[in-house]
Protein backbone atom coordinates (compact mmCIF):
# COMPACT_ATOMS: atom_id res chain seq x y z
CA UNK A 1 0.00 0.00 0.00
CA UNK A 2 1.31 3.39 -1.01
CA UNK A 3 1.14 5.53 2.09
CA UNK A 4 2.70 8.59 0.43
CA UNK A 5 -0.50 9.43 -1.43
CA UNK A 6 -2.33 9.32 1.89
CA UNK A 7 -0.03 11.90 3.49
CA UNK A 8 -2.46 14.89 3.68
CA UNK A 9 -4.90 12.75 5.65
CA UNK A 10 -2.11 11.46 7.90
CA UNK A 11 -0.99 15.06 8.60
CA UNK A 12 -4.53 15.95 9.57
CA UNK A 13 -4.92 12.90 11.80
CA UNK A 14 -1.59 13.62 13.50
CA UNK A 15 -2.69 17.20 14.17
CA UNK A 16 -5.91 15.95 15.73
CA UNK A 17 -3.98 13.53 17.96
CA UNK A 18 -1.59 16.28 19.07
CA UNK A 19 -4.57 18.37 20.18
CA UNK A 20 -6.18 15.38 21.88
CA UNK A 21 -3.10 15.22 24.12
CA UNK A 22 -2.86 19.01 24.48
CA UNK A 23 -6.44 19.03 25.78
CA UNK A 24 -5.16 17.14 28.80
CA UNK A 25 -2.27 19.60 29.35
CA UNK A 26 -2.58 22.91 31.27
CA UNK A 27 -4.55 25.64 29.48
CA UNK A 28 -2.42 27.83 27.21
CA UNK A 29 -4.30 29.24 24.24
CA UNK A 30 -1.22 30.98 22.76
CA UNK A 31 0.59 27.64 22.52
CA UNK A 32 -2.49 25.98 20.96
CA UNK A 33 -2.73 28.68 18.32
CA UNK A 34 0.93 28.46 17.29
CA UNK A 35 0.91 24.64 17.19
CA UNK A 36 -2.30 24.67 15.14
CA UNK A 37 -0.90 27.14 12.60
CA UNK A 38 2.32 25.16 12.22
CA UNK A 39 0.67 21.75 11.86
CA UNK A 40 -2.12 22.82 9.50
CA UNK A 41 0.48 24.69 7.46
CA UNK A 42 2.39 21.43 7.06
CA UNK A 43 -0.83 19.69 6.01
CA UNK A 44 -1.51 22.34 3.35
CA UNK A 45 2.03 21.87 1.98
CA UNK A 46 1.58 18.07 1.95
CA UNK A 47 -1.67 18.36 0.00
CA UNK A 48 -0.19 20.83 -2.51
CA UNK A 49 2.87 18.62 -3.00
CA UNK A 50 0.66 15.59 -3.63
CA UNK A 51 -1.84 17.27 -5.92
CA UNK A 52 -0.98 15.01 -8.85
CA UNK A 53 -0.99 11.81 -6.77
CA UNK A 54 -3.09 8.94 -8.06
CA UNK A 55 -4.10 5.57 -6.78
CA UNK A 56 -6.58 3.46 -4.89
CA UNK A 57 -6.39 2.52 -1.22
CA UNK A 58 -8.25 0.28 1.23
CA UNK A 59 -9.43 -2.36 -1.25
CA UNK A 60 -10.75 0.16 -3.73
CA UNK A 61 -12.98 2.01 -1.27
CA UNK A 62 -10.82 5.13 -1.44
CA UNK A 63 -9.80 6.77 -4.69
CA UNK A 64 -7.11 9.40 -5.00
CA UNK A 65 -7.08 11.34 -8.25
CA UNK A 66 -6.70 14.94 -9.38
CA UNK A 67 -10.37 15.62 -8.60
CA UNK A 68 -10.07 14.54 -4.97
CA UNK A 69 -6.66 16.15 -4.49
CA UNK A 70 -7.78 19.55 -5.78
CA UNK A 71 -10.67 19.47 -3.32
CA UNK A 72 -8.42 18.30 -0.49
CA UNK A 73 -6.08 21.22 -1.12
CA UNK A 74 -9.04 23.60 -0.97
CA UNK A 75 -10.29 21.98 2.25
CA UNK A 76 -6.92 22.21 3.95
CA UNK A 77 -6.50 25.79 2.83
CA UNK A 78 -9.91 26.51 4.31
CA UNK A 79 -8.85 24.85 7.56
CA UNK A 80 -5.60 26.80 7.62
CA UNK A 81 -7.36 30.11 7.03
CA UNK A 82 -9.91 29.41 9.77
CA UNK A 83 -7.09 28.51 12.16
CA UNK A 84 -5.31 31.77 11.27
CA UNK A 85 -8.32 33.87 12.34
CA UNK A 86 -8.60 31.92 15.61
CA UNK A 87 -5.92 33.92 17.43
CA UNK A 88 -8.55 35.70 19.52
CA UNK A 89 -11.13 32.92 19.63
CA UNK A 90 -13.14 34.78 22.23
CA UNK A 91 -16.34 32.97 21.30
CA UNK A 92 -15.12 29.79 22.98
CA UNK A 93 -13.88 29.33 26.54
CA UNK A 94 -10.14 29.09 26.76
CA UNK A 95 -10.02 25.63 28.30
CA UNK A 96 -11.86 24.25 25.25
CA UNK A 97 -9.41 25.63 22.69
CA UNK A 98 -7.52 22.32 22.19
CA UNK A 99 -10.87 20.56 21.68
CA UNK A 100 -11.82 23.25 19.16
CA UNK A 101 -8.70 22.62 17.08
CA UNK A 102 -9.04 18.86 17.45
CA UNK A 103 -12.65 18.82 16.26
CA UNK A 104 -11.80 21.19 13.43
CA UNK A 105 -9.00 18.94 12.14
CA UNK A 106 -11.04 15.75 12.59
CA UNK A 107 -13.86 17.39 10.68
CA UNK A 108 -11.46 18.33 7.88
CA UNK A 109 -10.13 14.76 7.87
CA UNK A 110 -13.68 13.45 7.54
CA UNK A 111 -14.42 15.89 4.72
CA UNK A 112 -11.25 14.80 2.90
CA UNK A 113 -12.34 11.19 3.21
CA UNK A 114 -15.79 12.17 1.96
CA UNK A 115 -14.19 13.62 -1.16
CA UNK A 116 -12.15 10.47 -1.81
CA UNK A 117 -14.68 7.82 -0.77
CA UNK A 118 -15.96 5.66 -3.61
CA UNK A 119 -17.91 3.14 -1.55
CA UNK A 120 -21.29 4.04 -0.06
CA UNK A 121 -20.38 2.69 3.39
CA UNK A 122 -17.19 4.77 3.64
CA UNK A 123 -19.07 7.75 2.22
CA UNK A 124 -21.78 7.51 4.85
CA UNK A 125 -19.54 7.09 7.90
CA UNK A 126 -17.26 9.91 6.71
CA UNK A 127 -20.29 12.19 6.38
CA UNK A 128 -21.44 11.28 9.89
CA UNK A 129 -17.98 11.93 11.34
CA UNK A 130 -17.87 15.40 9.80
CA UNK A 131 -21.43 16.18 10.93
CA UNK A 132 -20.87 15.10 14.52
CA UNK A 133 -17.68 17.12 14.90
CA UNK A 134 -19.56 20.15 13.58
CA UNK A 135 -22.45 19.62 16.02
CA UNK A 136 -20.02 19.64 18.94
CA UNK A 137 -18.17 22.66 17.54
CA UNK A 138 -21.46 24.57 17.53
CA UNK A 139 -22.14 23.50 21.13
CA UNK A 140 -18.76 24.89 22.21
CA UNK A 141 -19.95 28.52 21.94
CA UNK A 142 -19.43 30.42 25.15
CA UNK A 143 -22.63 31.32 26.95
CA UNK A 144 -24.75 28.22 27.14
CA UNK A 145 -28.04 29.23 25.59
CA UNK A 146 -26.94 30.39 22.16
CA UNK A 147 -24.72 27.44 21.37
CA UNK A 148 -26.97 24.81 22.89
CA UNK A 149 -30.24 25.75 21.22
CA UNK A 150 -28.73 26.18 17.76
CA UNK A 151 -26.58 23.07 18.25
CA UNK A 152 -29.68 21.09 19.15
CA UNK A 153 -31.51 22.32 16.06
CA UNK A 154 -28.49 21.50 13.91
CA UNK A 155 -28.31 18.02 15.41
CA UNK A 156 -32.00 17.19 15.00
CA UNK A 157 -32.22 18.36 11.38
CA UNK A 158 -28.91 16.62 10.64
CA UNK A 159 -30.09 13.35 12.17
CA UNK A 160 -33.30 13.32 10.15
CA UNK A 161 -31.41 14.22 6.97
CA UNK A 162 -28.94 11.41 7.51
CA UNK A 163 -31.79 8.94 8.18
CA UNK A 164 -33.36 10.01 4.87
CA UNK A 165 -30.02 9.56 3.17
CA UNK A 166 -29.55 6.09 4.64
CA UNK A 167 -32.98 5.08 3.37
CA UNK A 168 -32.03 6.33 -0.09
CA UNK A 169 -28.72 4.47 -0.06
CA UNK A 170 -30.50 1.27 1.00
CA UNK A 171 -32.95 1.64 -1.90
CA UNK A 172 -30.07 2.25 -4.28
CA UNK A 173 -28.18 -0.78 -3.01
CA UNK A 174 -31.27 -2.94 -3.15
CA UNK A 175 -31.98 -1.93 -6.74
CA UNK A 176 -28.45 -2.20 -8.11
CA UNK A 177 -26.78 -4.68 -5.75
CA UNK A 178 -23.65 -2.55 -5.95
CA UNK A 179 -21.90 -0.41 -3.38
CA UNK A 180 -18.74 0.61 -5.23
CA UNK A 181 -19.08 3.79 -7.28
CA UNK A 182 -17.18 2.25 -10.20
CA UNK A 183 -19.86 -0.49 -10.39
CA UNK A 184 -22.74 1.90 -9.75
CA UNK A 185 -21.66 4.19 -12.57
CA UNK A 186 -21.98 1.25 -15.00
CA UNK A 187 -25.22 -0.17 -13.61
CA UNK A 188 -27.29 2.95 -12.87
CA UNK A 189 -27.73 4.40 -16.40
CA UNK A 190 -29.29 1.07 -17.43
CA UNK A 191 -31.81 0.91 -14.59
CA UNK A 192 -32.47 4.63 -14.17
CA UNK A 193 -36.09 4.26 -15.30
CA UNK A 194 -36.92 2.18 -12.21
CA UNK A 195 -38.56 4.31 -9.52
CA UNK A 196 -36.49 2.90 -6.65
CA UNK A 197 -33.23 3.88 -8.36
CA UNK A 198 -34.22 7.46 -9.02
CA UNK A 199 -35.86 7.82 -5.60
CA UNK A 200 -32.87 6.22 -3.94
CA UNK A 201 -30.56 8.70 -5.61
CA UNK A 202 -32.78 11.66 -4.75
CA UNK A 203 -33.13 10.62 -1.11
CA UNK A 204 -29.41 9.81 -0.85
CA UNK A 205 -28.65 13.34 -2.02
CA UNK A 206 -30.73 14.73 0.88
CA UNK A 207 -27.93 14.09 3.35
CA UNK A 208 -25.70 16.35 1.29
CA UNK A 209 -28.43 18.93 0.74
CA UNK A 210 -28.50 19.26 4.51
CA UNK A 211 -24.79 20.05 4.68
CA UNK A 212 -25.11 22.40 1.76
CA UNK A 213 -28.20 24.10 3.30
CA UNK A 214 -30.37 23.55 0.22
CA UNK A 215 -34.14 23.88 0.59
CA UNK A 216 -35.89 22.01 2.39
CA UNK A 217 -32.94 21.28 4.68
CA UNK A 218 -31.85 24.90 5.12
CA UNK A 219 -33.66 25.77 8.35
CA UNK A 220 -30.61 25.21 10.54
CA UNK A 221 -28.33 27.58 8.66
CA UNK A 222 -29.32 31.02 10.05
CA UNK A 223 -29.63 29.82 13.65
CA UNK A 224 -26.38 27.87 13.53
CA UNK A 225 -24.43 30.72 11.94
CA UNK A 226 -25.80 33.02 14.62
CA UNK A 227 -25.34 30.61 17.50
CA UNK A 228 -21.91 29.24 16.64
CA UNK A 229 -18.62 31.00 17.34
CA UNK A 230 -17.50 33.16 14.37
CA UNK A 231 -14.66 30.84 13.46
CA UNK A 232 -16.95 27.81 13.48
CA UNK A 233 -19.48 29.63 11.30
CA UNK A 234 -16.65 30.56 8.94
CA UNK A 235 -15.63 26.91 8.75
CA UNK A 236 -19.20 25.71 8.11
CA UNK A 237 -19.72 28.24 5.34
CA UNK A 238 -16.41 27.50 3.59
CA UNK A 239 -14.76 24.10 4.03
CA UNK A 240 -17.86 22.01 4.65
CA UNK A 241 -19.58 23.52 1.58
CA UNK A 242 -16.54 22.80 -0.59
CA UNK A 243 -16.54 19.10 0.34
CA UNK A 244 -20.26 18.73 -0.30
CA UNK A 245 -19.92 20.22 -3.78
CA UNK A 246 -17.38 17.46 -4.51
CA UNK A 247 -19.66 14.67 -3.32
CA UNK A 248 -22.69 16.06 -5.14
CA UNK A 249 -20.62 16.11 -8.33
CA UNK A 250 -19.63 12.49 -7.79
CA UNK A 251 -23.19 11.40 -7.08
CA UNK A 252 -24.61 13.33 -10.04
CA UNK A 253 -21.96 11.79 -12.31
CA UNK A 254 -23.33 8.33 -11.36
CA UNK A 255 -26.41 8.91 -13.50
CA UNK A 256 -24.31 9.77 -16.55
CA UNK A 257 -26.88 12.45 -17.41
CA UNK A 258 -29.42 9.76 -18.31
CA UNK A 259 -32.24 10.97 -16.07
CA UNK A 260 -34.33 14.05 -16.78
CA UNK A 261 -36.30 13.47 -13.56
CA UNK A 262 -33.23 14.00 -11.41
CA UNK A 263 -32.29 17.13 -13.35
CA UNK A 264 -35.79 18.55 -12.84
CA UNK A 265 -35.66 17.67 -9.15
CA UNK A 266 -32.32 19.47 -8.74
CA UNK A 267 -33.51 22.44 -10.81
CA UNK A 268 -36.59 22.93 -8.62
CA UNK A 269 -34.48 22.75 -5.45
CA UNK A 270 -31.97 25.21 -6.95
CA UNK A 271 -34.68 27.72 -7.85
CA UNK A 272 -36.41 27.52 -4.45
CA UNK A 273 -33.10 27.70 -2.55
CA UNK A 274 -31.81 30.81 -4.28
CA UNK A 275 -35.16 32.59 -4.16
CA UNK A 276 -35.83 31.78 -0.50
CA UNK A 277 -32.24 32.61 0.45
CA UNK A 278 -32.14 35.96 -1.32
CA UNK A 279 -35.61 37.17 -0.32
CA UNK A 280 -35.13 36.29 3.35
CA UNK A 281 -31.66 37.80 3.45
CA UNK A 282 -33.11 41.24 2.68
CA UNK A 283 -34.90 41.34 6.04
CA UNK A 284 -31.88 40.36 8.15
CA UNK A 285 -30.30 42.68 10.73
CA UNK A 286 -27.60 40.34 12.00
CA UNK A 287 -24.59 40.09 9.68
CA UNK A 288 -24.02 36.39 10.30
CA UNK A 289 -27.68 35.54 9.60
CA UNK A 290 -27.41 37.53 6.38
CA UNK A 291 -24.34 35.53 5.39
CA UNK A 292 -26.24 32.31 6.19
CA UNK A 293 -29.09 33.21 3.85
CA UNK A 294 -26.62 34.24 1.20
CA UNK A 295 -25.03 30.77 1.61
CA UNK A 296 -28.41 29.19 0.93
CA UNK A 297 -28.72 31.28 -2.23
CA UNK A 298 -25.23 30.34 -3.34
CA UNK A 299 -26.03 26.65 -2.79
CA UNK A 300 -28.76 27.21 -5.36
CA UNK A 301 -26.30 28.69 -7.90
CA UNK A 302 -23.90 25.77 -7.42
CA UNK A 303 -26.72 23.28 -7.98
CA UNK A 304 -27.29 24.89 -11.39
CA UNK A 305 -23.72 23.98 -12.29
CA UNK A 306 -24.01 20.48 -10.82
CA UNK A 307 -27.26 19.58 -12.57
CA UNK A 308 -25.70 20.19 -15.99
CA UNK A 309 -23.82 16.86 -15.56
CA UNK A 310 -21.40 17.95 -18.29
CA UNK A 311 -17.64 18.64 -18.17
CA UNK A 312 -18.37 22.39 -18.38
CA UNK A 313 -20.90 22.14 -15.56
CA UNK A 314 -18.49 20.19 -13.38
CA UNK A 315 -15.67 22.66 -14.06
CA UNK A 316 -17.93 25.58 -13.16
CA UNK A 317 -19.06 23.92 -9.91
CA UNK A 318 -15.48 23.19 -8.83
CA UNK A 319 -14.48 26.76 -9.64
CA UNK A 320 -17.47 28.03 -7.69
CA UNK A 321 -16.32 26.00 -4.69
CA UNK A 322 -13.07 27.98 -4.76
CA UNK A 323 -15.08 31.18 -5.21
CA UNK A 324 -17.28 30.49 -2.18
CA UNK A 325 -14.22 29.54 -0.13
CA UNK A 326 -12.39 32.81 -0.83
CA UNK A 327 -15.35 35.19 -0.67
CA UNK A 328 -17.13 33.78 2.37
CA UNK A 329 -13.87 33.51 4.26
CA UNK A 330 -13.05 37.16 3.56
CA UNK A 331 -16.47 38.17 4.92
CA UNK A 332 -15.90 36.17 8.08
CA UNK A 333 -12.39 37.60 8.46
CA UNK A 334 -14.02 41.02 8.73
CA UNK A 335 -16.72 39.70 11.08
CA UNK A 336 -14.07 38.28 13.40
CA UNK A 337 -12.08 41.52 13.39
CA UNK A 338 -15.06 43.84 13.95
CA UNK A 339 -16.61 41.62 16.62
CA UNK A 340 -13.35 40.66 18.28
CA UNK A 341 -15.11 40.11 21.61
CA UNK A 342 -16.87 37.08 20.11
CA UNK A 343 -20.34 38.61 20.34
CA UNK A 344 -22.79 38.62 17.43
CA UNK A 345 -22.70 41.61 15.16
CA UNK A 346 -25.52 43.72 13.73
CA UNK A 347 -25.08 45.32 10.35
CA UNK A 348 -25.37 48.76 11.98
CA UNK A 349 -22.22 48.07 13.96
CA UNK A 350 -20.28 48.18 10.70
CA UNK A 351 -21.03 51.92 10.45
CA UNK A 352 -17.97 53.90 9.51
CA UNK A 353 -15.75 50.86 9.07
CA UNK A 354 -13.82 52.64 6.31
CA UNK A 355 -12.62 55.19 8.89
CA UNK A 356 -11.92 52.67 11.62
CA UNK A 357 -10.02 50.23 9.42
CA UNK A 358 -9.75 50.99 5.69
CA UNK A 359 -8.26 47.62 4.76
CA UNK A 360 -11.09 45.67 6.45
CA UNK A 361 -13.70 47.86 4.75
CA UNK A 362 -12.00 47.26 1.40
CA UNK A 363 -11.90 43.49 2.01
CA UNK A 364 -15.58 43.45 2.98
CA UNK A 365 -16.56 45.46 -0.08
CA UNK A 366 -14.56 43.26 -2.47
CA UNK A 367 -15.96 40.06 -0.97
CA UNK A 368 -19.56 41.29 -1.07
CA UNK A 369 -19.17 42.53 -4.64
CA UNK A 370 -17.74 39.11 -5.43
CA UNK A 371 -20.74 37.37 -3.85
CA UNK A 372 -23.04 39.65 -5.86
CA UNK A 373 -21.15 38.72 -9.02
CA UNK A 374 -19.75 42.10 -10.02
CA UNK A 375 -16.68 42.09 -12.32
CA UNK A 376 -13.68 42.01 -12.07
CA UNK A 377 -13.95 39.71 -9.04
CA UNK A 378 -13.75 35.92 -8.91
CA UNK A 379 -17.47 35.87 -8.12
CA UNK A 380 -18.28 37.22 -11.58
CA UNK A 381 -16.09 34.60 -13.28
CA UNK A 382 -17.67 31.82 -11.23
CA UNK A 383 -21.23 32.86 -12.07
CA UNK A 384 -20.32 33.37 -15.73
CA UNK A 385 -18.94 29.81 -15.94
CA UNK A 386 -22.04 28.33 -14.31
CA UNK A 387 -24.48 30.27 -16.48
CA UNK A 388 -22.64 29.49 -19.74
CA UNK A 389 -22.54 25.79 -18.79
CA UNK A 390 -26.29 25.84 -18.16
CA UNK A 391 -26.96 27.75 -21.41
CA UNK A 392 -24.99 25.14 -23.37
CA UNK A 393 -27.35 22.50 -22.04
CA UNK A 394 -30.30 24.73 -23.00
CA UNK A 395 -31.60 25.56 -19.51
CA UNK A 396 -32.52 29.12 -20.47
CA UNK A 397 -35.37 29.57 -17.96
CA UNK A 398 -33.15 28.41 -15.11
CA UNK A 399 -30.44 30.91 -16.02
CA UNK A 400 -33.01 33.70 -16.30
CA UNK A 401 -34.36 32.98 -12.80
CA UNK A 402 -30.81 32.83 -11.45
CA UNK A 403 -30.05 36.21 -13.04
CA UNK A 404 -33.12 37.73 -11.37
CA UNK A 405 -31.85 36.37 -8.10
CA UNK A 406 -28.44 37.91 -8.63
CA UNK A 407 -30.14 41.30 -9.02
CA UNK A 408 -32.15 40.79 -5.82
CA UNK A 409 -29.01 39.81 -3.92
CA UNK A 410 -27.26 42.98 -5.05
CA UNK A 411 -29.69 44.97 -2.88
CA UNK A 412 -28.76 43.48 0.49
CA UNK A 413 -25.05 43.26 -0.29
CA UNK A 414 -25.11 46.96 -1.10
CA UNK A 415 -26.89 47.68 2.20
CA UNK A 416 -23.92 46.21 4.05
CA UNK A 417 -21.41 48.10 1.91
CA UNK A 418 -23.41 51.29 2.52
CA UNK A 419 -23.18 50.76 6.29
CA UNK A 420 -19.43 50.27 6.05
CA UNK A 421 -18.71 53.17 3.72
CA UNK A 422 -21.42 55.82 3.88
CA UNK A 423 -22.58 55.86 7.50
CA UNK A 424 -20.63 57.73 10.15
CA UNK A 425 -19.16 55.69 13.00
CA UNK A 426 -21.02 55.78 16.31
CA UNK A 427 -19.75 57.97 19.13
CA UNK A 428 -16.76 56.56 20.96
CA UNK A 429 -15.86 54.02 18.28
CA UNK A 430 -12.17 54.47 17.76
CA UNK A 431 -9.90 52.88 15.20
CA UNK A 432 -10.29 49.14 14.93
CA UNK A 433 -7.38 47.17 16.39
CA UNK A 434 -7.30 44.04 14.27
CA UNK A 435 -5.25 41.03 15.23
CA UNK A 436 -1.63 41.13 14.05
CA UNK A 437 -1.32 40.09 10.42
CA UNK A 438 -5.04 40.56 9.68
CA UNK A 439 -4.28 43.49 7.41
CA UNK A 440 -1.80 41.47 5.38
CA UNK A 441 -4.23 38.54 5.18
CA UNK A 442 -7.06 40.81 4.06
CA UNK A 443 -4.83 42.44 1.45
CA UNK A 444 -3.74 39.04 0.10
CA UNK A 445 -7.32 37.83 -0.10
CA UNK A 446 -8.45 40.97 -1.95
CA UNK A 447 -5.56 40.59 -4.37
CA UNK A 448 -6.42 36.91 -4.92
CA UNK A 449 -10.13 37.65 -5.45
CA UNK A 450 -9.37 40.28 -8.08
CA UNK A 451 -6.42 38.51 -9.70
CA UNK A 452 -8.23 35.20 -10.20
CA UNK A 453 -11.25 37.15 -11.40
CA UNK A 454 -9.24 38.87 -14.13
CA UNK A 455 -6.92 36.03 -15.08
CA UNK A 456 -8.43 32.66 -14.07
CA UNK A 457 -6.75 30.63 -16.84
CA UNK A 458 -4.04 28.73 -14.87
CA UNK A 459 -6.42 27.69 -12.11
CA UNK A 460 -9.15 26.94 -14.62
CA UNK A 461 -6.81 24.61 -16.52
CA UNK A 462 -6.12 22.65 -13.33
CA UNK A 463 -9.83 22.51 -12.47
CA UNK A 464 -10.73 21.38 -15.99
CA UNK A 465 -8.25 18.51 -15.68
CA UNK A 466 -9.76 17.66 -12.28
CA UNK A 467 -13.27 17.61 -13.77
CA UNK A 468 -12.01 15.20 -16.42
CA UNK A 469 -10.69 12.87 -13.71
CA UNK A 470 -14.21 12.68 -12.28
CA UNK A 471 -15.71 10.71 -15.19
Amino acid sequence: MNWMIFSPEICCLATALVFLFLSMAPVDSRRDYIVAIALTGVAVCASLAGIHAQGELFHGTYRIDLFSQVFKSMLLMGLFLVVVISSGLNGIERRYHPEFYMLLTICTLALMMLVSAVHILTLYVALELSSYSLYILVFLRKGRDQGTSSGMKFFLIGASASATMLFGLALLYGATNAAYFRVLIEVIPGVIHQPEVILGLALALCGFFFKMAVFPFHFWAPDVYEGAAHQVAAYISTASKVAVIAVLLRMAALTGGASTHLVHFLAILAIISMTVGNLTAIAQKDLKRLLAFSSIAHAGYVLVGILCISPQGNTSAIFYALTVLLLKFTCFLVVVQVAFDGENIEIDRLAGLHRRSPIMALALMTALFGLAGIPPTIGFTGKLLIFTAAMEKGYFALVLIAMFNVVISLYYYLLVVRAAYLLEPAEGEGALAPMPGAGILAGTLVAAIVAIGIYPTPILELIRAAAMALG
Partner: protein
Amino acid sequence: MTIYSTLFYLLAVLILASTAIAVTRRNMVHAVIYLVISFFGSALLFYLFGAPLLAALEVIIYAGAIMILFLFIVMMLRMEGLEDRLFPLKQWLPAVGVCFVYGMVLVMLIVSDTTDAPPMPAAAAAPATFGQFLFQRHWLAIEIVSMLLLIALVGVLRLGRDAGGKTRPESEVAQ
Protein backbone atom coordinates in the same frame (compact mmCIF):
# COMPACT_ATOMS: atom_id res chain seq x y z
CA MET B 1 -48.59 -18.63 0.49
CA THR B 2 -45.70 -20.40 2.13
CA ILE B 3 -45.14 -20.50 5.86
CA TYR B 4 -42.26 -18.04 5.43
CA SER B 5 -44.37 -15.37 3.80
CA THR B 6 -47.13 -15.90 6.36
CA LEU B 7 -44.60 -15.37 9.15
CA PHE B 8 -43.20 -12.34 7.34
CA TYR B 9 -46.56 -10.61 7.11
CA LEU B 10 -47.43 -11.47 10.70
CA LEU B 11 -44.15 -9.94 11.89
CA ALA B 12 -44.57 -6.92 9.65
CA VAL B 13 -48.00 -6.24 11.15
CA LEU B 14 -46.58 -6.69 14.64
CA ILE B 15 -43.75 -4.22 13.96
CA LEU B 16 -46.01 -1.64 12.36
CA ALA B 17 -48.62 -1.86 15.10
CA SER B 18 -46.18 -1.69 18.01
CA THR B 19 -44.28 1.22 16.47
CA ALA B 20 -47.52 3.10 15.83
CA ILE B 21 -48.58 2.56 19.45
CA ALA B 22 -45.13 3.63 20.67
CA VAL B 23 -45.34 6.90 18.74
CA THR B 24 -48.79 7.79 20.05
CA ARG B 25 -48.35 6.92 23.75
CA ARG B 26 -48.38 9.79 26.23
CA ASN B 27 -46.72 7.71 28.89
CA MET B 28 -43.03 7.54 27.98
CA VAL B 29 -42.36 4.26 29.78
CA HIS B 30 -45.15 2.55 27.84
CA ALA B 31 -43.78 4.00 24.60
CA VAL B 32 -40.34 2.56 25.31
CA ILE B 33 -41.80 -0.90 26.07
CA TYR B 34 -43.74 -0.91 22.80
CA LEU B 35 -40.57 0.11 20.96
CA VAL B 36 -38.81 -2.89 22.51
CA ILE B 37 -41.54 -5.14 21.08
CA SER B 38 -41.00 -3.52 17.69
CA PHE B 39 -37.25 -4.23 17.92
CA PHE B 40 -37.94 -7.86 18.81
CA GLY B 41 -40.12 -8.06 15.71
CA SER B 42 -37.30 -6.67 13.54
CA ALA B 43 -34.88 -9.16 15.09
CA LEU B 44 -37.19 -12.05 14.19
CA LEU B 45 -37.45 -10.65 10.68
CA PHE B 46 -33.66 -10.69 10.35
CA TYR B 47 -33.65 -14.26 11.63
CA LEU B 48 -36.26 -15.20 9.05
CA PHE B 49 -34.06 -13.78 6.29
CA GLY B 50 -31.18 -15.98 7.41
CA ALA B 51 -29.14 -13.44 9.37
CA PRO B 52 -29.02 -14.80 12.93
CA LEU B 53 -26.05 -12.60 13.86
CA LEU B 54 -27.93 -9.41 12.94
CA ALA B 55 -30.94 -10.69 14.86
CA ALA B 56 -28.82 -11.24 17.96
CA LEU B 57 -27.18 -7.82 17.59
CA GLU B 58 -30.58 -6.17 17.21
CA VAL B 59 -31.80 -7.70 20.46
CA ILE B 60 -28.57 -7.10 22.39
CA ILE B 61 -27.84 -3.55 21.25
CA TYR B 62 -31.19 -1.98 20.39
CA ALA B 63 -33.72 -3.81 22.54
CA GLY B 64 -31.18 -4.29 25.29
CA ALA B 65 -28.68 -1.50 25.71
CA ILE B 66 -30.26 1.50 23.98
CA MET B 67 -33.77 1.00 25.30
CA ILE B 68 -32.52 0.52 28.85
CA LEU B 69 -30.71 3.84 28.44
CA PHE B 70 -33.97 5.40 27.28
CA LEU B 71 -35.76 4.01 30.33
CA PHE B 72 -33.05 5.42 32.60
CA ILE B 73 -33.41 8.87 31.07
CA VAL B 74 -37.21 8.78 31.21
CA MET B 75 -37.17 7.76 34.87
CA MET B 76 -34.45 10.22 35.85
CA LEU B 77 -36.19 13.16 34.22
CA ARG B 78 -39.59 12.03 35.56
CA MET B 79 -41.32 12.71 32.26
CA GLU B 80 -44.50 10.87 33.22
CA GLY B 81 -47.20 11.74 30.75
CA LEU B 82 -47.17 14.93 28.78
CA GLU B 83 -50.28 16.93 29.50
CA ASP B 84 -50.62 18.95 26.32
CA ARG B 85 -50.84 17.77 22.75
CA LEU B 86 -47.67 16.09 21.55
CA PHE B 87 -47.19 18.35 18.53
CA PRO B 88 -48.48 21.87 17.99
CA LEU B 89 -50.79 22.13 15.01
CA LYS B 90 -48.35 24.10 12.87
CA GLN B 91 -45.97 21.13 12.94
CA TRP B 92 -48.59 18.82 11.48
CA LEU B 93 -48.35 20.27 7.98
CA PRO B 94 -44.65 19.47 7.37
CA ALA B 95 -45.17 16.06 9.01
CA VAL B 96 -48.06 15.30 6.68
CA GLY B 97 -45.93 16.48 3.75
CA VAL B 98 -43.09 14.13 4.67
CA CYS B 99 -45.54 11.25 5.16
CA PHE B 100 -47.04 11.98 1.75
CA VAL B 101 -43.60 11.80 0.10
CA TYR B 102 -42.80 8.49 1.76
CA GLY B 103 -46.29 7.17 0.92
CA MET B 104 -45.63 8.05 -2.73
CA VAL B 105 -42.32 6.20 -2.56
CA LEU B 106 -44.08 3.15 -1.16
CA VAL B 107 -46.83 3.17 -3.80
CA MET B 108 -44.32 3.61 -6.61
CA LEU B 109 -42.23 0.73 -5.29
CA ILE B 110 -45.27 -1.54 -5.04
CA VAL B 111 -46.65 -0.78 -8.51
CA SER B 112 -43.25 -0.83 -10.24
CA ASP B 113 -42.56 -3.78 -12.51
CA THR B 114 -39.87 -5.94 -10.94
CA THR B 115 -40.23 -9.07 -13.02
CA ASP B 116 -37.11 -8.47 -15.10
CA ALA B 117 -34.96 -7.36 -12.15
CA PRO B 118 -32.86 -10.20 -10.77
CA PRO B 119 -33.50 -10.82 -7.06
CA MET B 120 -30.62 -10.06 -4.74
CA PRO B 121 -28.71 -13.22 -3.90
CA ALA B 122 -29.00 -14.14 -0.25
CA ALA B 123 -25.60 -13.89 1.38
CA ALA B 124 -25.72 -16.10 4.43
CA ALA B 125 -22.37 -15.83 6.20
CA ALA B 126 -21.08 -17.17 9.46
CA PRO B 127 -20.27 -14.46 12.03
CA ALA B 128 -16.55 -15.20 11.75
CA THR B 129 -16.56 -14.77 7.96
CA PHE B 130 -18.61 -11.62 8.27
CA GLY B 131 -16.21 -10.19 10.83
CA GLN B 132 -13.18 -11.02 8.73
CA PHE B 133 -14.76 -9.46 5.66
CA LEU B 134 -15.66 -6.31 7.56
CA PHE B 135 -12.30 -5.85 9.22
CA GLN B 136 -10.27 -6.70 6.12
CA ARG B 137 -12.19 -4.96 3.38
CA HIS B 138 -13.77 -2.08 5.25
CA TRP B 139 -11.37 -1.28 8.02
CA LEU B 140 -11.22 2.34 6.91
CA ALA B 141 -14.93 2.64 7.73
CA ILE B 142 -14.33 0.92 11.09
CA GLU B 143 -11.56 3.41 11.88
CA ILE B 144 -13.81 6.32 10.93
CA VAL B 145 -16.48 4.97 13.28
CA SER B 146 -13.91 4.68 16.07
CA MET B 147 -13.02 8.34 15.57
CA LEU B 148 -16.73 9.15 15.65
CA LEU B 149 -16.97 7.49 19.06
CA LEU B 150 -13.94 9.46 20.25
CA ILE B 151 -15.41 12.82 19.34
CA ALA B 152 -18.79 11.77 20.72
CA LEU B 153 -16.97 11.19 24.00
CA VAL B 154 -15.45 14.67 23.81
CA GLY B 155 -18.86 16.17 23.14
CA VAL B 156 -20.53 14.31 25.97
CA LEU B 157 -17.77 15.39 28.37
CA ARG B 158 -18.28 19.02 27.41
CA LEU B 159 -22.08 18.86 27.64
CA GLY B 160 -22.08 16.77 30.79
CA ARG B 161 -19.53 18.92 32.59
CA ASP B 162 -21.58 22.05 32.00
CA ALA B 163 -24.89 20.43 32.87
CA GLY B 164 -23.52 19.04 36.12
CA GLY B 165 -23.59 22.48 37.72
CA LYS B 166 -19.93 22.21 38.63
CA THR B 167 -18.78 24.69 36.02
CA ARG B 168 -16.55 27.44 37.16
CA PRO B 169 -16.40 30.70 35.26
CA GLU B 170 -13.41 31.34 33.03
CA SER B 171 -11.71 33.72 35.48
CA GLU B 172 -11.63 31.13 38.24
CA VAL B 173 -10.17 28.48 35.98
CA ALA B 174 -7.44 30.82 34.84
CA GLN B 175 -6.27 31.53 38.37
